[in-house]
């Protein structure tokens, strides 16, 4: 056994270099790649946002022309949602799920690698659209119909921007669905002995719920995108009103997907916060069951509210009322979470470290965002707010103030587990405060701008509107956020060079990953653990006295003895089987954007062969994958 492990470690150490990253099927490496890629896209989306803010900083801005502006906000929204928040969440799924449930890897390691490569292919493909309009003549070619691409505007849009957008989203959809299937199977099937569903950490639960939302929501947008593409490329009539088509069908389908999507974006962050708060208050999560069931309730209810994005389309009195009520009620399970988190802090021993800062930032900003959401549900006043900066403020408040803050909390919390180094606290707090202040400076003024009647998606506004000052504030805030991101990047670089090691359990953690060395070895667990309680690792460290106060267990205590017995049991199992690396997932992924490009250009440049080439590459990849003698 020991011999085998030594060999595995040696194998892993000899397995280095760029080739090893291209063929890796290790969930931790894939997680790192997801994280780094998504963060790069965040910088890109952030630069787009800064350009937008520069243009809007004063009335009659001259930085961008309307065409470039429209393309930039479309790409900003699309990038932030599909290339930043979703994959950052996926990075955490990858890094953590096997560790949290006591597994050596995900259920389908190669499918997991495939997800990542397809995501990368889709992201690059989407951004390649910038170059289609003749960028050297100063014209961007990106999509220009907004991140929800309402038909018929997205039909009449000229150039290839929308085609790239639609195919890009289709490719990204494949990546998300594959990851969704994989994580559901992993969570159901790969749990260590004793890890019952109701012992799973909340983050695992939220991953499960999110994955279910993904696999049910993605097919709907897939069909919508295909319909759009058939209309654009082959003259089909789905949204063509001249032939009797209904443009509103697009909106229904988009938001049928789109609303579950916003919970796909927020639930992982909520899971992260549910792990951070207990650790940093040295108390179990308050109302574990309620937090989980409220997550399930949110997921369930998220299917019944989509038309709140369509109040002003004239749905009729009954539909508007019904969707108003269903949307309002979604605040109830969300409230349960907020209250349970605060109750977790209450009476705890709160360790004011950076991950906790970001978690508290999450709670406070998300509550503001949620309450503005509730304002939107009041249909008649939404007639005034819809498509104004009030909406822009609402969703940045939940997406940035919520999801991004939560994800940063996770980065600070788990960074030591995967790098062996803690992020520097001083830089971290500077990062937090700059971001927190910058965030409020950017998005609170937008709330007022919305109420002052500033519509969204306008490249310019007149000077008599009274919007100048607040816009200037927002721009200043955006640059402050940018500065905070630079501080974060400095922090990462500085911290990685620190000599000081983090140790296995720097935060006095509660869940299984903290029982492993940092960084985690390739096989995760030398012995698959046997789980006896929720927050199992905490209970290995502390017993509880009669008053419910934890008492540290000295090594060799009762629990430890039991543990050894458990180990013997596990000993009788198999040795460590690690999945072997494979480059087939990468090959299979490469074919997809080639095929998509072939479809887009087949008429103008007769690239029919390109479709075939792409298809062949993908099929070869799949066959190679299927026939490869791998042990997974």
């Amino acid at each position, binding site marked *: 056994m020991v011999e085998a492990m030594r060999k595995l470690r040696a194998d892993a150490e000899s397995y280095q270099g760029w080739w090893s990253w291209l063929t890796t099927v290790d969930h931790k490496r894939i997680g790192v790649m997801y994280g780094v890629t998504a963060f790069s896209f965040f910088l890109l989306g952030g630069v787009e946002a800064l350009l937008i803010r520069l243009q809007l900083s004063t009335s009659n801005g001259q930085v961008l022309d309307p065409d470039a502006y429209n393309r930039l906000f479309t790409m900003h929204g699309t990038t932030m949602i599909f290339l930043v928040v979703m994959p950052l969440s996926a990075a955490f799924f990858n890094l953590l799920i096997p560790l949290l449930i006591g597994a050596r890897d995900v259920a389908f390691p190669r499918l997991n690698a495939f997800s990542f490569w397809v995501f990368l292919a889709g992201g690059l493909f989407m951004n390649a659209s910038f170059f289609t309009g003749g960028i050297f003549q100063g014209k961007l070619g990106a999509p220009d119909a907004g991140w929800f691409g309402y038909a018929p505007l997205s039909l009449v849009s000229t150039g290839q921007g929308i085609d790239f957008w639609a195919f890009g989203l289709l490719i990204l959809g494949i990546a998300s669905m594959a990851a969704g299937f994989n994580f559901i199977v992993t969570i159901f099937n790969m749990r260590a*002995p004793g890890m019952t569903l109701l012992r799973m950490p909340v983050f695992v639960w939220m991953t499960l719920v999110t994955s279910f939302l993904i696999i049910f929501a993605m097919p709907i947008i897939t069909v919508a995108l295909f319909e759009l593409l058939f209309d654009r490329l082959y003259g089909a009539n789905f949204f063509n009103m001249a032939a009797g088509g209904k443009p*509103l069908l697009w909106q*229904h389908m988009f938001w049928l997907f789109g609303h579950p999507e916003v919970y796909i974006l927020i639930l992982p962050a909520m899971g992260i916060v549910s792990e951070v708060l207990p650790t940093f208050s040295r108390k179990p999560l308050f109302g574990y069951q309620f937090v989980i069931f409220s997550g399930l309730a949110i997921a369930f209810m998220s299917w019944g509210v989509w038309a709140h994005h369509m109040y002003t389309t004239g749905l009729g009195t009954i*539909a508007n009322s019904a969707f108003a009520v269903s949307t309002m009620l979604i605040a109830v399970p969300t409230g349960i979470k907020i209250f349970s988190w605060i109750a977790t802090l209450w009476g705890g021993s709160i360790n004011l470290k950076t991950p906790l800062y970001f978690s508290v930032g999450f709670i406070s900003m998300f509550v503001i965002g949620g309450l503005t959401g509730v304002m939107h549900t009041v249909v008649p006043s939404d007639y005034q707010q819809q498509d104004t900066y009030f909406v822009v403020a609402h969703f940045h408040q939940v997406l940035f103030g919520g999801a991004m803050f939560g994800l940063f909390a996770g980065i600070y919390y788990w960074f030591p587990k995967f790098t062996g180094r803690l992020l520097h606290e001083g830089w971290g707090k500077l990062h937090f405060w700059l971001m927190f202040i910058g965030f409020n400076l950017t998005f609170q003024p937008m709330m007022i701008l919305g109420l002052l009647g500033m519509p969204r998606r306008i490249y310019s506004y007149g000077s008599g509107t009274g919007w100048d000052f607040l816009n200037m504030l927002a721009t200043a805030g955006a640059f402050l956020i940018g500065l905070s991101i630079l501080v974060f990047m400095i922090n990462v670089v500085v911290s990685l060079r620190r000599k000081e090691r983090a140790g296995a359990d720097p935060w006095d953690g509660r869940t299984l990953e903290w029982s492993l060395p940092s960084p985690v070895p390739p096989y995760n667990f030398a012995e698959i653990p*046997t789980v006896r309680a929720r927050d199992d690792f905490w209970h290995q460290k502390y017993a509880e006295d009669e008053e419910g106060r934890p008492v540290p267990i000295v090594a060799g205590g009762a629990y430890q003895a039991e543990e050894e017995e458990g180990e013997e049991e596990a000993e009788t199992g198999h040795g460590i089987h690690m999945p072997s690396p494979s480059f087939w997932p990468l090959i299979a992924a490469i074919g997809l954007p080639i095929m998509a490009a072939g479809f887009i250009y087949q008429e103008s440049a007769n690239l029919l062969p390109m479709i075939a080439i792409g298809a062949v590459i993908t099929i070869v990849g799949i066959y190679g994958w299927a026939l490869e003698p791998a042990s997974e």
Partner: protein
Amino acid sequence: MTLAESRGIKRPPEHEADARQAGGRAHPGPLEYTRIGLILAVITAVEVGAFYMDIAQWALVSILVVLSAVKFSLVVMWFMHLRFDSRLFSGLLVGGLMLAAALFVVVLSTLGGGLT
């Protein structure tokens, strides 16, 4: 939740390589499959027959919907083994179907069109 119940500290005993699944019964044999196939064929014949009969539209529609639902259930219950396999699978399929049905009934009724 059945899953939680089926989940103890001990792993379930290793199962044989045949198709027996946890909580599931053995699959039926060729004879039974063929019988179901015959029933399916007969129902299809009845459907097409009904199509050519001179009956009221509502009656035709209800007959066709019921018959195809029966066909659907026969295939998923026997050929896809939902009768014998883990209840989780039935839950997934039925959940997906109900979700799709619920969502699109609402969409179609707000958008109007051929259904109304």
